[in-house]
Each structure stands twice: as C-alpha cells, then as structure tokens.
C-alpha cells in the first residue's frame, strides 16, 4: 500500500483536491459540518502526499509520471521518439513549491473555518479547493499546455474568490481587473504555446527543452514565444510596472484568500523559473534576461516599499509589501541567472551565483510565510473590528493580545530582523547580490529598513495607543484564527533559528533541480 502511494503520488496530489472539490456541493446539500470535515480531510491528505512526494524526490531525484500510460515511467511509448501523453515531471523545485502551496492552503482552510458561514460557504470551499488544484497542477505538470490549463483554473477560481464579498463594491472591481489581466496574460501564453507547437510539433517541456537547446533547431519564432511567456508570467508574478492588480486583489480578498493568493503568485513565479531555467536555459541571451530580471526586481522593491508607506487600507498596504518581497526574489533569481549565463549551462556556476539562487528560492518560502502571517493578522483585525481603514483603528493590543504578538513576529520577519527567517534569506541575497553591483545591495537593504518603518506605522496606529471607545467591545480573534497564525509563526521561528538545515535539505535540491536542465530533458526522452 505504501509504495502504491509513493509511485502514484504526483497524480494523487492533484486528484484528491479535485475529487473533494467536485464532492463538496453534494456533501454540502447533506450537512454543513460533514462538508467542513471532508474539505479538511482532503487538504490534510494533500499536505501528507506533498511531504511523501518531497521525501521521494529528495531521495531519488526527479520523478516522472505518465497519465494513462501502461507503466508509470513510460514516457516514450514503443516506437515513438516523442512523448505523447501528458507527463507529470516532479523535480526538486516543483516539490518545494508544492510544499508551500499545500501548507498555505491547509492553514488558510483552518483560518477560513472560523469566519465563512452562511449560504455561500459551499461555493467558497469548492473554489478554494479548485485554487489548490490549479497551483499544484502548475507545479507538477511537465506539459506546457497543461500548465496553461491549470493557470486558467487558478486565475478563474481566485478571481471568483476575490469577489466573494459581492455585496461590497470594491471586491467586484478588484476581481474584474484581476480576471481580465490574468486571462489576457493566459491568452499570450496560449499564443506562445501555438508558436512552439507550430515550430517543434511538441508540447512536453522536457522534449521542447531538448529541441531548443540544440543550436540547429533554435529559430526566431522560438525567441518570440519566449518573450510572450516571459512577459505573461512576469505579469502574473506581480513584478513592478505590471503590479497594480496585486494590491487591489490582495486588499479586497477575504482573510485567508489573501494568503493563498500569495502562494498562487509564487506558483506563477515557479512557472517563470521553469520557462527561464529549464525550457530555454542557455538558448536565449541569458545575461540580458538576467539583467532584465535584476532591474524588474529593483523597480519592484522600490515601488513596493515607497507605495506601501502612503497606504491607508491595511490589507492594501501589505499587498504593496508583497510586491516588494517579490522584487527581492526576482533580484536574487536575476543574479543567479546572470551568473549561469556567464558559465553557460554546462559549467559550474560561481559561488555567489549559487548563493543568490539559494537566497532567492529560500525567500520564496519565507515571503509566503511572512506576508501570509501579516494577512492573517490583518484579516483577524478586520473580522473583529469590521474596520480596515488605518486612520480609524487604534489601541487594539488591549483586547487582541495574541494577534499583536503574531503581528510583531510577522513584522520582524518581513523587514528582515536577525533571529527570524526573513533575515536568513535576505542575508544570502544581500551578500551575493553585492558581488554583481553594490548599488543593488544598497537599495535592497534600504528598502528592507523602509519596510520596517512601514510596519512600525501599522503596529503603532492599529495596536498601540489608548483603548478607543468604538473598539471597547471587541474581543480577541476566534481560536481557529489564532491557531493558524500560531502554525505559521512556529514554522517561521524554526526557519529563522535553523536556516542551514532548511537550506541544505529543502532549498538546495530545488536550486540544483533548476540548474539541471539535462536531467529534466533526459528523464522525458528516456535518457535517465
């Protein structure tokens, strides 16, 4: 039984939430509590499978799963030189992202049990599970068109969830902006897939990487396809000049959904990394792309931090902080890609390039945890006081003690104060980015201090100060909310105190998987 689960883990991790998503409306008609229990069990199973899959991938490398094939590993049916079926290709990086997605969704689910009541809740959980399916599908699949389909599932379900509080006007506006921009980006991805299919008659990412990396068959249309893919995934990842949908969407979504949306944005970032590092790696002009990523990162950090300062709505402010955090990741990944370009795919990357990649990938996990915790606290504050305007809030620490402690932990982590996880990944980024050019490192450190100033502002104006009359009656957030915040805080403290354990065991396999294009191609074209 156990190895049956291990061999079929890549598809079970997608099938369980999908099955639960379709089952929810049926169970919902029977009993509300039964539905909650079923959804909880399904997300828990997905989390367990994610860790089983992670263990399997960390032990024996890349796992390939062919849907509908005679045997699991049969990527090339007899007599074919080209993979035909949908092949799930799970390497260190996709398992790293799967852990993030399942963990965030599990904690988000715990959180949303406490405030999702009433008649619309059945649809809320279906969409929540469909969002999880979209994220995991994007991270697991080795097929480019399948990536497009899961990207669309993710976009549609998260747009519907952003507009969950449809009685208020703003969530509707945020949702329509999000869905129009996302479906436009997805159409560009589809156009790029059409170009690649027209060029190579292939849809599988591994086989495509094989074709693209060989100089003979690299053509001009493939470069145009890369630009379309790159621009769409950079938009979906929320980088600087195209970031404006992100604070709208994060600011207006229900409490737990803002956190899961952060993980959804990281899933698009994963797709960007997959396209840059694995599918195209050295075929395109990697150093220019590296420089573009670095500049996008810097602009994101600068705009995210400065715009966050003048915000009045609490969740919208954290949304801009999320843009800045994505800027850090793009900066680190850009430096890593720039170094990889110098060495040219085959050789060994320079020491600080490797550290930059480790810092960037580690910061993806930290970013989701830190910004996620802040969104949970903001959700608790809004749930208790029904007020999200910072000017009207004040003196909540008197009644909401635990939430304010969690806010301090989140604040310290996001702005990179030493003992916590934010600092561990940011120190990696600062020191390695410094080698490329000191200015980038200076801007990164300044922005980090800026972020501290921003969150001190929230902390002071929301939690400190005298007990205001209008909030005299409000009491602490419900137990479930505090429980989910505690789970995230414990993980953050653990990551903060033992970063070397995390980097060596979880981040390094992901980084090596990113740089190991040959392994990715080989496992599909039968060379493994």
């Amino acid at each position, binding site marked *: 039984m156990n190895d049956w689960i291990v061999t079929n883990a890549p598809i079970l991790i997608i099938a369980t939430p999908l099955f639960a998503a379709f089952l929810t409306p049926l169970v919902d008609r029977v009993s509300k509590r039964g539905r909650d229990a079923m959804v909880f069990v399904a997300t828990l199973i997905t989390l367990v499978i994610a860790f089983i899959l992670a263990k399997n991938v960390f032990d024996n490398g890349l796992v390939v799963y062919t849907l509908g094939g005679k045997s699991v590993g049969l990527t090339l049916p007899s007599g074919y030189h080209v993979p035909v079926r949908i092949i799930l290709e799970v390497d260190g990086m996709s398992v790293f992202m799967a852990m993030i997605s399942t963990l965030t969704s599990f904690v988000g689910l715990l959180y949303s049990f406490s405030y999702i009541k009433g008649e619309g809740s059945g649809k809320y959980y279906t969409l929540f599970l469909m969002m999880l399916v979209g994220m995991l599908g994007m991270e697991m699949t080795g097929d480019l068109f399948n990536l497009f389909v899961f990207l669309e599932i993710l976009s549609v379900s998260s747009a519907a969830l952003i507009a969950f509080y449809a009685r208020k006007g703003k969530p509707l506006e945020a949702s329509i902006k999000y869905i129009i921009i996302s479906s436009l980006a997805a159409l560009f991805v589809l156009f790029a897939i059409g170009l690649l299919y027209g060029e190579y008659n292939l849809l599988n990412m591994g086989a495509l990487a094989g074709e693209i990396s060989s100089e003979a068959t690299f053509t001009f249309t493939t470069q145009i396809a890369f630009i379309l893919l790159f621009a769409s995934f950079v938009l979906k990842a929320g980088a600087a000049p195209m970031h*404006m949908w992100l604070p709208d969407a994060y600011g207006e979504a229900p409490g737990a959904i803002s956190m899961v949306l952060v993980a959804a944005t990281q899933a698009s970032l994963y797709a960007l990394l997959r396209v840059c590092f694995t599918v195209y790696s050295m075929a395109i002009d990697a150093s*220019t792309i590296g420089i573009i990523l670095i500049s996008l990162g810097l602009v994101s950090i600068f705009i995210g931090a400065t715009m966050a300062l003048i915000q009045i709505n609490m969740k919208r402010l954290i949304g801009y902080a999320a843009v800045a955090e994505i800027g850090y990741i793009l900066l680190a990944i850009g430096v890593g890609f720039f170094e990889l370009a110098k060495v040219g795919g085959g050789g060994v990357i320079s020491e600080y390039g490797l*550290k930059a990649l480790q810092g960037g990938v580690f910061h993806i996990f930290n970013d989701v945890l830190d910004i996620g915790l802040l969104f949970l606290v903001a959700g608790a504050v809004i749930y208790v006081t029904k007020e999200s305007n910072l000017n009207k809030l004040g003196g909540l620490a008197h009644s909401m003690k635990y939430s304010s402690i969690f806010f301090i932990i989140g604040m310290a982590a996001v702005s990179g104060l030493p003992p916590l996880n934010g600092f561990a990944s940011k120190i990696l980024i600062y020191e390695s980015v410094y080698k490329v050019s000191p200015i980038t490192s200076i801007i990164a450190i300044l922005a980090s201090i800026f972020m501290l100033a921003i969150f001190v502002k929230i902390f002071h104006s929301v939690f400190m100060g005298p007990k205001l009359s209008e909030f005299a009656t409000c009491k602490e957030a419900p137990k479930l909310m505090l429980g989910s915040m505690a789970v995230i805080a414990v993980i953050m403290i653990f990551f903060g105190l033992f970063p070397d354990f995390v980097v060596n065991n979880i981040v390094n396999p992901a980084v090596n998987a990113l740089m190991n294009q040959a392994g990715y191609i080989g496992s599909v074209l039968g060379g493994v």
Partner: protein
Amino acid sequence: MALETTGGYWSPVIWLAAFIVAFLISYIIWGMGEKKHAKGEQEKPFLSGMEEPPKEEVHIRAENMYWGFTDTLRGYYDFMKKIHTGIINDYVLWFLGMATIFFIVVILPEVFK
C-alpha cells in the same frame, strides 16, 4: 549549525545566545538605576500649564505618521499616485508596453547581430 553565505556565515542560535547575554547585562544595569519614581503631580508632563488632552485625541493616526517624509517627497508621491490610476485599460497598457520593451531589448540585438 551555520548558514554559509557569500561573505561568511550566519548562525542565529549563537546570535540569540549573545543577544540574551547582552539583554541580561543591560537589564542588570537598568536595574541598578533609580528606584524611586515620582508619583502624582511630578509625573504629569508640563505643557506650560495646559491641561493634558485625553489620550484618544493625542494618538497619532496612520495617515500623518510619516508626515514629514511624505511631504518632502511630495513631487514623487504625486507622480506615483497619478501613475496608479486603477483603470483596466492602463493595466493592459502597462502589460503590452512591458511586453514590447522586453521584445525590443531581447530580440532586436539578435536581429542586428
């Protein structure tokens, strides 16, 4: 135990131990300070005879927390507010604009090479 970074290493546990030790030392020094704390009349802030306003009004709200900073950067912030228009058409314009910039930066040198 330590995380190797480019310039050296970072081990939070040792840092935490040093932090606790430093905290204890400073706590002891703080403890040796004056115990007597003026109660009653002396404790009130001297506002040149004015009556101290109730705490609610004094609490600095979020908007004017960094008033000085946002005011000096008035030019930059007005420009940023103007850019973030919140209209869907501008979002699409940003996306298509950035796509063309990527196109120009990456593809055109390729063409003229």
